[in-house]
């Protein structure tokens, strides 16, 4: 009854072959990550120390630490979040909960997709035109952060909208049938169940914002500053730009320095991503329906 035929065998061989092929492709995908990480740790690990993280660069940036760049990146990301999260979440709530299915909504959705597709250098030049020159913020943390915020807005909107949409429609209808307004429904039932997904999106946005270079290099990030920024209208150094500078613009930099900077940068991004993944796993265990 269960004898294998020639055809069975051939199908099984093919199936094994394809499984192997797909697995190889997947492994191929993780090799660059591994190579990058091991190289960075091997070549830059030795320079990492508390001093490296918390002192200023010295000797024309060929020695010393990276503190002003690290500090500046945190500032840039924080201000960008302060702007993009409220706007992005509000837009996502509107699109998911209120927007009727009409031409306006379709245009908004199209705009979001296109905004996500705009190259970062174009965002950078837009930021120069709009924030630095037109709004007269000058090259400053504010201008750079606003540019970053606009660039990452689609990430926040799409992630938030998706987590709102993941709340079943039946929950909303049950509330509406009780006489709840749309806002009451959103506040009591939809948002509490979407907030975790929104947070995950925000963390991913942080990790993306941290590494961006082009949008900040004309709008607020400085080549070198001997002091820390005092407010949002000051320029600042930033980790990503600092990496670019020490790897290509300054002569006589010891080899381990740029590797060390890259390692710190990537560690920050990986940390953010791991937090987001851990958060998602934690929530999956707490499924509410």
């Amino acid at each position, binding site marked *: 009854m269960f004898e294998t035929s020639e055809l069975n065998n051939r199908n099984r061989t093919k199936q094994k072959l394809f499984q192997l092929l797909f697995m190889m492709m997947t492994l191929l995908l993780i090799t660059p990550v591994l190579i990058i990480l091991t190289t960075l740790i091997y070549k830059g690990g030795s320079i990492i120390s508390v001093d490296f993280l918390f002192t200023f660069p010295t000797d024309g940036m060929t020695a010393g630490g990276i503190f002003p760049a690290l500090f500046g990146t945190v500032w840039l990301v924080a201000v960008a979040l302060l702007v993009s999260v409220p706007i992005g979440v509000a837009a996502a709530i509107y699109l998911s909960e209120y927007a009727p299915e009409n031409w306006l909504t379709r245009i908004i959705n199209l705009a979001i997709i296109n905004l996500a597709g705009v190259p970062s250098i174009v965002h950078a030049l837009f930021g120069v035109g709009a924030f630095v020159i037109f709004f007269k913020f000058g090259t400053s943390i504010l201008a750079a952060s606003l540019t970053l915020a606009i660039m990452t807005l689609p990430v926040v909107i799409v992630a938030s909208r998706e987590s709102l949409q993941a709340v079943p429609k039946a*929950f909303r*209808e049950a509330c509406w*049938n*009780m006489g709840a307004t749309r806002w009451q429904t959103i506040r009591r039932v939809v948002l509490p169940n979407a907030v975790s997904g929104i947070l995950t999106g925000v963390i991913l946005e942080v990790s993306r914002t941290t590494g961006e270079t082009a949008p900040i290099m004309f709008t607020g990030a400085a080549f070198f500053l001997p002091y820390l920024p005092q407010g949002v209208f000051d320029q600042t150094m930033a980790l990503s730009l600092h990496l670019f500078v020490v790897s290509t613009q300054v002569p006589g930099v010891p080899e381990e320095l740029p590797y060390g900077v890259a390692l710190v940068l990537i560690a920050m991004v990986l940390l953010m991503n791991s937090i987001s993944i851990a958060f998602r796993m934690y929530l999956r265990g707490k499924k*509410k*329906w």
Partner: protein
Amino acid sequence: MVSTVEAVMEKTEQHLKLDIRDLSIYYADTPALENVTLDIREHEIFGIIGPANAGKTSFLKAINRMDMFTSNMRVKGDIHFNGFDIRKTRNIYALRKRIGVVFPLPVGLPLTIYENVALAPRLSGIRNKAELDVIVERCLIRAALWDEVKDRLDSLGSLLSGGQQQRLTIARALSQEPEVLMLDEFSIAVDSVTTMRIEDVLKELKAEMTIILVTNLVQQARRLADRTAFFLEGKCVEIGDTEDLFIGNVKEQSTRDYIEGKFG
């Protein structure tokens, strides 16, 4: 003369909870229900029977103005609730608050059992914990769920079993203190023992509210409904006293066939 008219109107208003005239419902251009005229009296259980696609659910949706949630659903005709034209009222929230709905598939909101039932009272402004406790307990007892959940009111309502969730849904509908309770095939996800318990509850509730019972079980309509309407393919074929219909006192052959189980 004038006084007579007023008297008649007053009398009608007293007895008619819902007055439905020439109700037609379309999804895009496809009719789901056509030219239904009927009235539902206060404190009666009004049964609606009929096979799938008869327009029963659409009928309920129109009464609750749920057509607003479905982008291509259109409703024509007049529906008067307590004498008010529901299509003219601006305050649909007040309308929905007076009409409780229970759908075939139970919806336990992802809140605690307590909060599921306390939600509607909270939305209408009740904050006093003691008052909420009373409402929650009363509604859960009425929905025949209290004994099973009284020790774990803080666990999630959405994680109860299907039958329990359906009773939670009923408790939630009752927590609105509705004037009309609409049940759409509520017993699909409920075992037969619980169904009987809920049916007993419905008989008691009749003293306080008007009940519209859409059911695919003709015998359930017979057990509960004072009057029954038979819907078929988007038309209301027949309306009559339930007993009349079931003893064969019908005008249309299709009604007789459906009740006797020849189709459906």
